[in-house]
């Protein structure tokens, strides 16, 4: 790891350190009153629980891992995973999908398989609220009683720092999607690239602790690679709200400089000031520079999944709005026994990554199982961030980072045991590229196989 990168990690950690994770800001008071019924007002079509019921809302990298490991360590638990989608689409590897390096099948997985193999129930519905007093999750397909509740809804987009009106926001969501949440967004971006005839393709990098720090930079590399290979007279313009690439900066900078000189323009400190969709112009940075674009994928700020706010378990923190108001070690909502928030919706300044959510899910599953079996908690274990980023496709060349986290009291002190592999050239880079695919396959096995 070089000095520059230590400093970059330091910057994120310092910001994290200012955010004491429990006290602070606008935590809504716990509301235990029985709310007027929302949802169907009838029971969900599920057989009676055969053991303590653990309901997990959100079948992403977090929820899938919590569901599997709760059931694994407490086989008597009745685990129900509530997920609004009918198929799992992986965000990791989706950048390779955008440029045709993997097919949709590689990143698409089957919720029924995960449930069948790991002996829990997959319940296809949207959660729309909770009744904490009665311990009921309301869903679009009926009410579910719970003894333990995990909310893992991931992120939502927060366009408010851009000061755009709702009509513009709506256009941004549909015409220029970020591609950091739903599979539909990825498909839109893929078809944009397939039709792209030339000019600037803008991608933005938000401030705050956004989902997957390296992914926008990875995407820039892959799109540039695609332009280069397909002889498209286009350029990826990266407007970064941060002062420099937030992670693996040496690897990305050198890839831009050496491989994509004519295809990538990196603009640091370029927070979006305004967006003119009619004239396809963006004003960014303190000097209010103007950038024209032919097409774009605008990645706004992130916030905690809306569900947390609806359920009254969210608070603002130093980085983002409306993330879980939880104890950083147990993931339990402050003041609410046995309601947990995990994954990218957590407020801790961890890297919002699939690997982090997965390793945290192993821990939380074990913790809930221990509560069920012995009414005890387990010793805190740091989540693990292992993250590979492709810098070119077919053949894939990649760079990577590995890190854990440490606390001072209840305050996150930052990253620890950080190791970087930023060599994308030659055999090392190619091996990193192979490791990226092996990483993904292993992760899918972890979530979908027994």
């Amino acid at each position, binding site marked *: 790891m070089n000095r520059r990168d230590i400093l970059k990690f330091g910057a994120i950690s310092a910001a994290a350190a200012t955010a004491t994770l429990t006290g602070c800001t606008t935590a809504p008071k716990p509301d235990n009153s029985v709310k007027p019924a929302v949802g169907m007002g009838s029971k969900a079509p599920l057989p009676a629980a055969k053991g303590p019921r653990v309901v997990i809302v959100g079948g992403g990298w977090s929820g899938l891992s919590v569901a599997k490991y709760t059931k694994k360590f407490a086989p008597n638990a009745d685990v129900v995973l509530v997920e609004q989608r009918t198929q799992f689409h992986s965000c990791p590897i989706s950048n390779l999908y955008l440029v045709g390096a993997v097919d949709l099948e590689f990143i698409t997985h089957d919720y029924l398989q995960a449930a069948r193999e790991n002996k829990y129930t997959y319940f296809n519905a949207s959660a729309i609220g909770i009744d904490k007093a009665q311990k009921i999750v309301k869903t679009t397909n009926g009410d579910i009683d719970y003894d333990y509740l995990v909310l893992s809804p991931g992120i939502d987009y927060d366009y408010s720092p851009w000061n755009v009106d709702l009509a513009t926001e709506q256009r941004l969501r549909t015409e220029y999607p970020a591609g950091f949440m739903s599979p539909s967004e990825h498909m839109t971006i893929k078809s944009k690239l397939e039709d792209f005839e030339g000019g600037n393709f803008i991608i933005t990098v938000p401030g705050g602790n956004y989902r997957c720090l390296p992914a926008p930079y990875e995407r820039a590399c892959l799109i540039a690679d695609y332009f280069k290979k397909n002889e498209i007279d286009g350029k990826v313009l990266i407007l970064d709200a941060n002062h420099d690439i937030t992670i693996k900066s040496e690897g990305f900078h050198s890839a831009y400089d050496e491989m994509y000189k004519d295809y990538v323009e990196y603009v640091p400190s370029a927070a979006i000031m305004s967006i003119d969709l009619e004239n396809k112009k963006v004003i960014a940075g303190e000097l209010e520079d103007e950038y024209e674009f032919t097409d774009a994928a605008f990645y706004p700020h992130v916030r905690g999944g809306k569900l947390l706010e609806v359920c009254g378990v969210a608070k603002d923190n130093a980085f983002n709005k409306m993330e879980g108001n939880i104890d950083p070690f147990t993931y339990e909502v402050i003041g609410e026994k046995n309601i947990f928030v995990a994954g990218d919706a957590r407020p801790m300044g961890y890297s919002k990554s699939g690997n982090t959510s997965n390793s945290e899910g192993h821990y939380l599953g074990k913790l809930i199982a221990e509560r069920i079996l012995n009414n005890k908690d387990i010793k805190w274990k740091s989540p*693990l961030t292992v993250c590979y980023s492709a810098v070119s496709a077919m053949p894939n060349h990649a760079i990577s980072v590995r890190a854990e986290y440490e606390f001072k009291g209840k305050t996150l002190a930052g990253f620890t045991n950080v190791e970087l592999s930023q060599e994308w050239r030659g055999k090392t880079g190619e091996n990193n590229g192979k490791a990226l695919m092996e990483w993904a396959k292993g992760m899918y*096995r972890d979530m979908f196989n027994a």
Partner: protein
Amino acid sequence: MQRREFFKVVAGVGAVIVAPSLITTDLRADDGRLYKAYNKVQLVDGDGNPILASKLVEEENYIFNYPFVGVSSILIALPEKTETNVKLKSESGEEYIWKGGIGKKGNIVAYSSICSHQMTHVNKAESFISYQKRCQKTMACPRTGVMVCASHLSAYDVHKGSEVISGPAPQPLASIVLEHHDDDTLWAVGVLGADKFHEFFKAFKSELKEQYGGARKAKKKVKDTAQLVALADFTKDIIQY
């Protein structure tokens, strides 16, 4: 009776759970917990000649298929004697004792190559799990001379029955229980610790078809002899960080 046939008879017993009293110190397993005997198999070279422990190159990754045709195991002659009588724990909390390396120096160890995390394993195309020499730094942990799975960077202590040092691995690799005979030959006799064989055969059906002509063939127990080859000769790419 010919030597070969003699071994066949012994091997014919197949897999049994060995009662604690049957296990000798030679087997390097302790009290039968999480120990499973498989065919007694001699390690040989490409020409079928016995491998001699004293001829092994230290710190080289060697591969042999055991206990099944489609499961590769890694053998290493470490530069020093391993620890002995190491207490290990499986993911489900079962404890067992790993007795230590074998050979004159007590330095020869073997482990299943299936990573206890998500089953990354040595295969012919590319291998992400292997022992990293003492001179090779790894991203997985500050120590060197460890087994590393580069898939999600788990590190295992090969001197201590592959106890997990870092990363997401929830339990040690399954140990291959070896015997070292007076004539310096090496034998594999069983597996100690929680293995992943069942999950492995299920998850890698299509890969096994490609490599071994089908899951059924891959699931056959290795009999009599197993060829020991250097990992570098077995796999196209050894991928490590």
